[in-house]
Every structure is written in C-alpha cells, then in structure tokens.
C-alpha cells in the first residue's frame, strides 16, 4: 500500500520535469543575454575610458582597446579636483551612514522593546514620512537650512539625512525578532534598561545595523538632487555633481575623460556592492517581505 502511494507521487513530477527539460539551456542562455545587456553599458564605460580619444567613437565598440591608455584618467584629475570631490563625498556619505545607524538603532529599539506614551502614534508618524517625497519638502528644507546658515555646507547635506524612516522600521523589525527572555534575564540580574540595551541587544543588532549602513552609503554616495540644490560653490560639490559639471564643461568632445570620471566615481559604489552585497540585498528584499 505504502509502496503504491510512493510510486504514484513521483511520477507526475518527473513528467512535468520532462516537459521542461528542453527549456533549461534556452532559459539560461536567455538569462545570460539579459545579464550581458544589463552589464553592457558598464563594460562599455570602462573600456571606452581606457581608449584614446580618437578611438572613443569606434563602432563596433571594441571591448578590449587596441591602444589601452590611462590618459583620460589624468585628464579627469586635470579638469576637476577629484580628491576634493571624493573627500566631500566620503565625508558626507560616511557621516550619514554612521548617523543613520545610530538614530535608527536607537529608535528601532525604543519602538520594539520599550514602553512609553504615544508609541503607536509616533511610530505611525515615522512610517508616514516614508511616503513623503523629498521634492515636496525641499523648498522649506532649503529655507530651514538657510536660516541655520547651513546652505552650501556639507553639514547641511548631512544633518537632515540622519533620521531614516525606513531604517527605523527595519531596526524595529530586527529587534522584534530577538528573543524577549534575553532582556528579561538581564533585568532579573539587575541590569537597568540601558545596560540591557547596551550589553544584550545592541551587540546582536550588528547585522541589521550593517544593512542600514550599506543602504545609506549606497543611496547617499549616489545622491544628486539635494547636493544639486544645496551646494552652490564648487568646493562643496560631491562626485555626482562634479561629474555632471565635467560633462557640461567638455560637451561631447572628450568622451573618454568623462567616462574615466564615471569609472572613478563608481569604484567605491562597486566596492560596497562587492562587500555589502548581502546586506544591501537583504535590505531591499525585506522592504517587500516584512511589511
């Protein structure tokens, strides 16, 4: 009897597998083509940045340059102060990332584990601000910063980015997922609420905080809209602004110089992609699954 049931169940499965057995190579080939299409513009950018200006418009595009040269990269350093832009970008991005990890970690813990008045309405307020587009508030934010004389400073870019609704939400979920009895045990041992947070829960939250940090790094390293509005003098430009101005100065002439600049600005983003791929992916995926 049991043998009979065992035999019947695999049979339809193998049929359905057989029906698709033609597909796998075609499916994988299709995926490979899509992946190539996705990476194509990036590969083209890197290879063109290594070509001589004379070869930059060559069609068909040569993936491996016949006369590879780093000349364009020197051109970027001649045209714009790459070091200054990189320093600005690094400073802004790193401070925002650390700031968001702190604020989101603290607020997320409070919402997950502490009891206080107006908890629900405050959390609703935080969630609601996720829906507010930056562009709707930018004029008053600009005025607030102006009244604090923070326009055209890096600080004006950094401070407003500290609170993160999404990060707070993420950290709350993260703390909610931790066992409650850990904290209760610490309390019984005489630890106050601060000690409980500091020695028990905060260390456990490191992976969650990494997600918040990597997401913040990725977003703010690439940020364009706020710097475009807030930073008016070139010495406060971040890399994306510098790049677009580089392109503006040169028109379509020295395409390989512009692309070399793009490659330079990509390096940290790619580094974060390689190192922080997992946290980044988890951050994005949890946007869909946890809600």
């Amino acid at each position: 009897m049991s043998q009979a049931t065992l035999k019947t169940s695999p049979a339809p499965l193998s049929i359905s597998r057989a029906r698709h057995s033609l597909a796998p190579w075609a499916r994988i080939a299709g995926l490979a083509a899509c992946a190539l299409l996705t990476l194509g513009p990036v590969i083209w950018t890197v290879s063109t940045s290594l070509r001589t200006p004379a070869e930059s418009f060559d069609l068909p595009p040569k993936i491996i340059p016949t006369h590879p040269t780093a000349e364009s990269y020197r051109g970027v350093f001649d045209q714009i102060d790459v070091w200054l832009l990189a320093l600005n970008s690094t400073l802004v991005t790193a401070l925002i990332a650390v700031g968001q990890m702190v604020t989101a970690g603290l607020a997320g813990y409070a919402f997950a584990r502490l009891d206080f008045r107006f908890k629900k309405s405050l959390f609703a307020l935080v969630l609601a601000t996720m829906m507010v587009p930056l562009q709707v508030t930018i004029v008053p934010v600009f005025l607030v910063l102006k009244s604090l004389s923070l326009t055209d400073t890096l600080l004006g870019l950094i401070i407003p980015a500290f609170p993160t609704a999404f990060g707070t939400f993420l950290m709350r979920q993260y703390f909610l997922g931790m066992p409650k009895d850990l904290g209760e045990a610490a309390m019984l041992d005489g630890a106050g609420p601060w000690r409980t947070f500091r020695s028990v829960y905060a260390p456990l939250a490191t992976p969650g905080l990494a997600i918040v940090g990597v997401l913040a790094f990725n977003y703010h390293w690439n940020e364009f809209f706020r710097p475009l509005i807030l930073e008016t003098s070139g010495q406060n430009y971040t890399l994306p602004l510098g790049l677009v101005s580089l392109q503006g100065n040169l028109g379509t002439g020295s395409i390989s110089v512009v692309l070399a600049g793009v490659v330079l600005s990509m390096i940290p983003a790619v580094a974060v992609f390689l190192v922080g791929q997992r946290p980044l992916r988890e951050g994005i995926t949890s946007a869909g699954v946890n809600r």
Partner: protein
Amino acid sequence: MTNTQIPAVRPSRPAAAPVTGAAQPSVRDRGTRLLATLFLAPTIVGIVVFTVVPIVGSVVLSLFHWNVIDSPSWAGTANYREVFTDSTVLVSFRNTLVFMVLAVALQLLIALVLALAVNRRMPMWLRSVFRSAFFFPLVLSAASISVVMKYLFNQDFGVVNWVLGQVGIAPVPWLTSENSAMAAVILVYVWQQFGFSFLLFVGGLNNIPKEIHEAASLDGATGLRKHLHVTLPLLSPTLLVATVVGVINALQVFEQPYVLTNGGPGDSTRTVVMVIYESAFEQLRFGEASAVGVLLFVLIMAVTALQFRLSRRFVHYQ
C-alpha cells in the same frame, strides 16, 4: 480586546503580577521612559524639523508669492490657478504619469520574468551570478549613469543605434526627437531600476512553500497555467509592494531626464520634479514651486491609496 480576555481565562496571574512588580517597575518605568525619550529624540526631532514642518511649510508657502528677495505677499489660490493654466506644468504632470505607467509596467514585467527564470533549477553559482548582474545597476548613481547613457543613445555615434543598424533598423533620433526622447528616458530608468523589483520578486518567490507548487503539478498544472493560477496569486502581496514602491519612485523621477535631455526637446521629457526644481531654484518662484510640490504630494497619496483599494480584489494573503 485580548487584554480583557486573559484575566477571564486565568484570573490568578494578573492579580499576582502587579503585587510583585509594583515597587520595582515605578523606578524602572521612569528609567525606561527616559531611555525611550533619549532614544527617540534624534529621529523624531529630525523628522519633525525636516519633514513635518516642511510639509506644513510647503502648503503655507504655496499660498504666497515669494522670490526670496522681496518679502512674501499673500497669493491665495493664485499659485494653484497659475499651475493649472501653465502649459509647461500641465505637460509635466502628463509626462510624469505617462512615464510612471510605462516605466513601472516595463520594470515589473522584466523583473518578474527574470525572477521566475532565475528561481528555476540551476547551479547555485550561476544563480548568484545572475542575481548580482541584475542587481548591479542599482548601486550606480543615476546621474552618472545617465551621463553614460547620453553617449550610448547618441543618434550618430551611439552604440544603441549601431546595434539597431545591425538588424536593419534606421537610426533613431533618441534624445533629439519629441517622439522618442521619453522612450529613451524610460529605457534608461528601467535599466537601472528593474533590479529592485527583481530582488523583491526573488524574495517573494522564495517565500512560497514548495509543497504548493508540487501539489499544483500533481493536479496537472504546468508552465504558464501554473504561473498564472498558482504563482501569481501567491506572489500578489510582493507584487503590491513592488508596484507601490515603483510608482512612488517613478513619480519622483528627476536625474534621468535632467541629465539626458534637460526636459526637452520642447517639454517632452520635463517631469514634475524638474518643474519644482526649475521654478524654485532657477526662477526663484518659491510659491509656485510649492504649489506644484503640494499637488505632486496629493497625486502620490491618491495613486497609492487607489492601489491599496484595488489591491483588495487581487491580493491574496496566505
């Protein structure tokens, strides 16, 4: 509700708890409340100063004429009336809606097909190669990638037209014709953004229990039918999130049209956010810019509410 039920079932427990806890928690509660205040202060103060007050500020500002130099003067609904008669603003709303519909549809379709394909049987390493590849554009800056795309979409020496030429399609004036500029902006945006929905879908598909698919196969469902009647309904909560986030993002598109076409040719790719930027920070018409901002906010709220309303009929929670 649940609180009132517990004492009815177990009367002894809540009676005992307050007695043992009464002396301590009063001290502990004060500590907890202080800690909560300290922990929340940075986030709440930040949100109030940089989001709540500015929203109110935008609404107030939209009722005034103000160019920063002169002092503000009361405008009443004049800014809104101006917005509704300004052809550039109206066109920008139409462009943004067209962009939103096409970009989100394309993005979700590509992401869904690729997620389904990646989630089928293949070697682990290959799967992670594909996943990383589709996700990679997301880590790049929209502004600098738009600079790159400007060259790729060039009519005469761009790679896109060269590839089209190989299959016998005449060169398309991508960025210089009113008919095709929006298509180029959408393609560039979707190229960079589909990885986001892709990751959501991969996560959602992984959350579907294997047994359900096996059961469906036992019932004779295969291929497309299985996807339509089994996978899609189970994925519908993820689809909803992907659509809502996709729509909210798309309504705020700025970098791509700003860098690729600067809103042109004519006004054909000018989006709402570009209009906010231009009227506030180029023309110093803060009142009108705020009015446009408020209308964008209302539009986003309305579209999002509509999606949740519609979703009640299509979204199935397990």
